[in-house]
């Protein structure tokens, strides 16, 4: 289980559109071998098929696919976007934070989602994540929430 560890968080990322943002979040998981490249394809496919419902709150997208699409380990990455990007969500656009979720079928998946929910249920944390400059800032935000 890997949750926003070093090399899984990228700051000030420039992308042109929602698909590139999803790819960037997926690539962080791919580089750590937590998912296979097929999973990134499935994330983008899910966006095309089901729309931007995974923009769960203002500024926050959590793209994901199914465990069988190629997840090696339950994991969460984060791409902080330099410029807000519209995903086409009626109330929560534009997106600033993209959490790539490697969805596993294990209990670890539940533990990860609890961590993520605990972090994002607090509006102060979201604001701090948007302005974080490095992994030390991220760790501080996660520590404070415990």
């Amino acid at each position, binding site marked *: 289980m890997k949750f926003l560890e070093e090399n899984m968080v990228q700051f000030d990322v420039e992308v042109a559109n929602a698909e590139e943002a999803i790819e960037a979040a997926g690539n962080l998981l791919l580089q750590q071998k937590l998912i296979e490249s097929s999973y990134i394809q499935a994330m983008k496919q899910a966006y095309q098929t089901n*729309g931007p419902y*995974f923009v*769960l*709150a203002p500024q926050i997208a959590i793209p994901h696919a199914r465990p069988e699409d190629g997840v090696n380990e339950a994991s969460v990455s984060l791409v902080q976007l330099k410029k807000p990007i519209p995903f086409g969500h009626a109330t*929560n656009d534009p997106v600033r934070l993209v959490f790539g979720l490697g969805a596993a079928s294990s209990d670890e998946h539940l533990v990860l989602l609890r961590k993520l929910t605990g972090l994002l249920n607090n509006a102060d944390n979201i604001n701090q994540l948007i302005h974080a400059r490095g992994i030390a800032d991220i760790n501080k935000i996660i520590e404070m929430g415990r």
Partner: protein
Amino acid sequence: MMKVLTVCGLGQGTSLILKMNVEQALREKGIRADVEHTDVSTASSMNADYIITSNELSEGLIGHPAKIIIVNNYFDMEEINQAIEQNVDSN
């Protein structure tokens, strides 16, 4: 017991997050309910008293006998609490 479904596109991530927060809200209100998470196509053929989902996905559930409750911000406990208060009959 009251049956509640939280629904997302795949039934893997988003609906689980919503389930966690809905369960917390129901617990705090003392409402006993069985909350299950699933994807939108499975939900269409499931029995439930209430379905909680996003505006985007609710269109796929038009005609479902359950009462549909919309939540826009899954991390806003105030919105979730309000949606439940306005829509769920606690008796």
